[in-house]
Structure formats: C-alpha cells, structure tokens
C-alpha cells in the first residue's frame, strides 16, 4: 500500500497548484505513472479520495495513465522497453539495466473551476 504515501504527496501538490491558480474546486487530476512503480490504480484512487477529503481536491476524479518504462543496458548502452518480468537486453542478452524513463509518477494536469459554486469550468 505505498499508494497511500504517494496519494499524500499528490494531494499536497494538487492543493498547491490549485491555490496558485485560485482554483476553488478541483474536478480532475491526471497522473502519469511508470509501470515500474507498481501502482495499483484502484488503490491509488481510493487513497487519493480519502486524503483529498476536506481539501479543494475533494471529490475530484483521478485519471491514471500508465507509461511504459525504458531501460538502458549497462553493457552495450542499448535502450529498450522491458517487460515487468523480463529485462534481458535484445542486443547483448544481459539483464544489467538502468531504468532511464517511465520510472516516475508525474502530475500532468489539474482541472477545476475558479468559482466556489458549481463544478463546471
């Protein structure tokens, strides 16, 4: 359940963005997550909804987009897309890799309305 720790960071960031842009009510939050971070979407959505309670992000929809990771072989520098259960380099056959992309969890967009009233923007 590392989703709870991630949700807490995420809500902090969403609240900061909302405050900076005078958003009173957040409707949608889009997050890109690298496959290597092993996030269970349902668990993150639940954690987010719990942590967001009482903040401007309360009731907001969380949309999670999973992005493929990119691995770089330490032996031959070849870059390839590993599977979760297979990091063998297609060039040299070694499984000695560094994840160079798709290892992050990125807050992409926050959508909301500036007024206090309705939820439409």
């Amino acid at each position, binding site marked *: 359940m*590392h989703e709870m720790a991630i949700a807490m960071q995420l809500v902090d960031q969403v609240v900061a963005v909302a405050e900076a842009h005078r*958003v009173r009510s957040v409707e949608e939050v889009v997050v890109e997550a690298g496959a290597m971070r092993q996030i269970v979407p349902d668990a993150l959505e639940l954690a987010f909804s719990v942590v967001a309670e009482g903040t401007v992000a309360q009731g907001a929809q969380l949309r999670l987009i999973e992005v493929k990771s990119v691995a770089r072989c330490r032996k031959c520098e070849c870059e390839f897309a590993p599977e979760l259960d*297979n990091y063998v380099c297609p060039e040299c056959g070694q499984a000695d890799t560094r994840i160079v992309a798709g290892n992050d969890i990125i807050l992409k967009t926050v959508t909301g309305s500036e007024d206090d009233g309705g939820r439409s923007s």
Partner: protein
Amino acid sequence: MKIQVVENVLKANDAIASANRQRLDAANVLAINLMSAPGSGKTTLLEKTIPAVGNDSRCAVLVGDLQTTRDAERLGQVAVDTVQINTGTGCHLSAAQVAEGLNALDLNRLAILFIENVGNMVCPAAFELGEHVKVVLLSIAEGDDKVAKYPTLFQQADVVLLTKIDLSEILEFNHDRVRDDLSRLNTRAPLIEISSKTGQGMDRWLDWLREQQHQ
C-alpha cells in the same frame, strides 16, 4: 480551467534521498538498504555480519518496523548505534524517516550504515532512501517462486542473498528456478547462498561488503 503541471510526485522523497546521500558521502559512510519479506533473516544476518566486518568498520543500523523496538534491542548488542524507526501503518521507509534517523547518529564515527527496511517485497522498492547499494534477501523458507513474483525488487538489487540455505534440502528448494528467474531480471547482482546459522556463504558476503567500501 485546465492547468498543465508536469511535476514529479515523488520529488519530495527523491530530494530528501539525495540530501541523505550527500550527508553520507561527506562522512564517508557506506549506506546499505536491506530489503526483503518479513522473516527472511535481515536482523539475524546483521547480528552475524556486524561483529565480523572488523573493528575498523564501525557499523550502525537504522531499522524500520511498524511496531516494537525488538530489532533495535537485538542489534544494539552488536552495532555502535541503532535507531528504531516505527512506521506505524507505513509499509516502507521513506527518505524523510531516514533523514531523521541520520540526525540521531554521529556519522563521523561510522564506516557502514545498514538500513533495515520494513519487511515487504513491494513498497520499499519504490522509495529511494539515499543508499549506495541495495541488498535483497530471499529465504529458502519463502519458496523458489518469489523472484518472478516480485520482479521489481530483484531487478534493482546490487546483490541477492539466498538466506537460510541450511533449510534447502528439507524444503526441496529449486535453486535453478531462482537462477533462471534472476537471469531475466538482473545478471549484474551476484547471488550469494548464505546461512547465518551455519556460517555458510558468510565469507563471500563479507568480501562483497568490503568491495563496496572500496568503491
């Protein structure tokens, strides 16, 4: 209104992790993050390792558990200093918790800091702590299928310790299965078969540790 943000959600953790790393480097301390399931033998391994690494390598331990100071009490017998971090309901150590732990230690007195993570094969793999190397333990009792079941943890390992090797025959453990699974995930990390009880493999593990100190 739609606001473009593009901000790393884990940046707070990662920033603290790199600050931890700088503090450790400044004090010339090798930090080792030990990760595994509960009961794989992390604490017992440290009880045997710390007295064996030699007097010139002073060791401290940061140990994470949900509750109790049991591990810290055990490790306090062998380490220069021990800090128990109780995570409450948290399933992993975070960089901030390690930073607090570092505050409680005199880093200049140390050569090696062992960070015994919360027993868990999933969540600790997602959080950098500022460590130099990651040690992953798998005990014979857990079964020979676990490398493939928890690939991300094993993919990150700098060394894999197959612990409780003395139970291998009793439990009919299939060593080839582990080697085969690791060959798809991580051919860089050496696999060391070890028993804290009989001492088998201890030399190889200690040699590996000393190599890390000289890097």
